[in-house]
């Protein structure tokens, strides 16, 4: 029997593809940079900053994101001279890792700003990614924030119950209990969603949105 609700046509958005391609291109260029090619790194950084400014990123927002990113990347980069010795060549290699990472990170920020998640999902569907992947991704995106709120509520409740400083073992036990409770609550919610989907005619045939 023919499917009564046909799937929507898979139309690829050229603009979305261009944005994905541009971001990937900058990352590829950044990953080919070496310590000696600092003028090219500077030019690439300038182009990325210009794209971010056009996309509406403020300097304050960028500084906040880089403050979170750079210490972690520096720690990873430092592990190279830490294991190989603090010679000039290893310091240069660590510096290259930081520059490559920073440019790629900024390109990623630009992509997130100019390609909203629902547009990304539509593009993935149009690019014939398996429907089960796109549907699971949409489901995850929908419930990500619900579970994040649930986690915040559990944290507040834990703080309210435990006045004062806890020792490390108590922190670990409370954390494990919290994640365990989150597992039970989220799986229960998953079962409820499944029953609601069945009530609305879910038959395992995925019909994504246009």
């Amino acid at each position, binding site marked *: 029997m023919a499917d009564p609700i046909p799937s929507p046509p898979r139309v690829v958005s050229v603009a979305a593809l261009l944005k994905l391609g541009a*971001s*990937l291109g900058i*990352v*590829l260029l*950044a*990953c080919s940079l070496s310590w000696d090619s600092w003028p090219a790194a500077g030019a690439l950084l300038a182009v990325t900053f210009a794209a971010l400014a056009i996309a509406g990123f403020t300097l304050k927002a960028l500084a906040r*994101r880089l403050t979170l990113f750079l210490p972690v990347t520096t720690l*990873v980069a430092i*592990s*190279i001279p830490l*294991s*190989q010795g603090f010679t000039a*060549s290893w310091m240069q290699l660590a510096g*290259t890792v*930081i520059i*490559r*990472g920073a440019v*790629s*990170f900024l*390109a*990623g920020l630009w*992509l*997130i700003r100019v*390609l909203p*998640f629902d547009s990304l999902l539509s593009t993935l569907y149009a690019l014939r990614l*398996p429907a*089960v*992947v796109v*549907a*699971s*991704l*949409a*489901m*995850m*995106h*929908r419930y*990500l924030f619900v*579970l*994040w709120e649930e*986690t915040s509520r559990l944290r507040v409740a834990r703080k309210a119950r435990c006045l004062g400083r806890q020792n*490390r073992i108590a922190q*670990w036990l409370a*954390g*494990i*209990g919290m*994640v*365990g*409770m*989150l*597992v*039970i609550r*989220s*799986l229960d919610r*998953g*079962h409820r*969603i499944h029953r609601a*989907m069945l009530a609305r005619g879910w*038959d*395992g045939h*995925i019909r994504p949105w246009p």
Partner: protein
Amino acid sequence: MHIHDGLLDTPVCLVTGGISLAAVGYSVHRLKDSLADRTVPMTGMVAALVFAGQMINFPVTAGTSGHLIGGVLAARLLGPWAGCLALTLVLFVQKFLFNDGGLLALGPNVLHMAVIGSLGGYAIQSAVARLAGDTIRGRVIGVVVASWFTVMAAAVLCSIEFAISQATNPDFQLGSFLALMMLFHSLIGIGESLISGGVIRFVATRRPELLYNPPASSGRPWRRTLAAGLATAVVVALLLSPLASSAPDGLEAAVQHSGLRADETPSLSLFGGYDQVLGDDGWESWSVVLSGLIGTLVVFGIALVLGRPLETTPNPAPGAPRG
């Protein structure tokens, strides 16, 4: 654990991305059989759960904290295939919604956390649980052991990938880098084991029906796993062996540095070396690829023969007639 762009070379990212794509693609293929049930909502929900779980940091040592990876946990809740997909979705969303992790590095990240974490983790925990007994205790032990080993395996693989990225650098010492990586990740692995084991114990004692129960299979239950394992090993051997560094390994370098000389004794090897299977007239690269393939198949065959005595038959269901 998330690798950012710039740490690994582009060819390494592309090769690991190809392996990850094959593994995730096979997982999705396996899931198509169970689409009519709860796969989509439960995979999405557990992916969101792992994402939220990764936000909770735990103190590891002074000034350092770790967070859950969740590959083994997802595999224990959803099964290996959906677990692998769930972790892939987590990494995808982290990249495209929060810019955490790299775009090119999505391949290695999926390989380390989703493929090794879920598929490898499920295989380890199933094997350990079979030895420890199908009780809550046995399951928890399986999860604890699998969690630690998957974190360590990911750290080792990451070090090897970095060493391949540094193949043109003769000064790079894989041993030193590996030691540093394993030192930190052994602590993170303990954290992962404690959290995953604790959470599975918490769920198994309160709501055991929420844990994944593999469907009863007839015939040879390990045939597909064996085929998938062999295929993965062959792909790794074929794709990564040409990228191997020509620099001496740790032992050879130590021998060279110390001025020691090995005694020249006649070799009993079938081939003269990895690069001489097809002769030494310009066929070295293809010889290395063929060596990788032959070696993988031979080791797989030996493991298969040696593993036969360990094969067990599934226990009959309670109440089922015996004999």
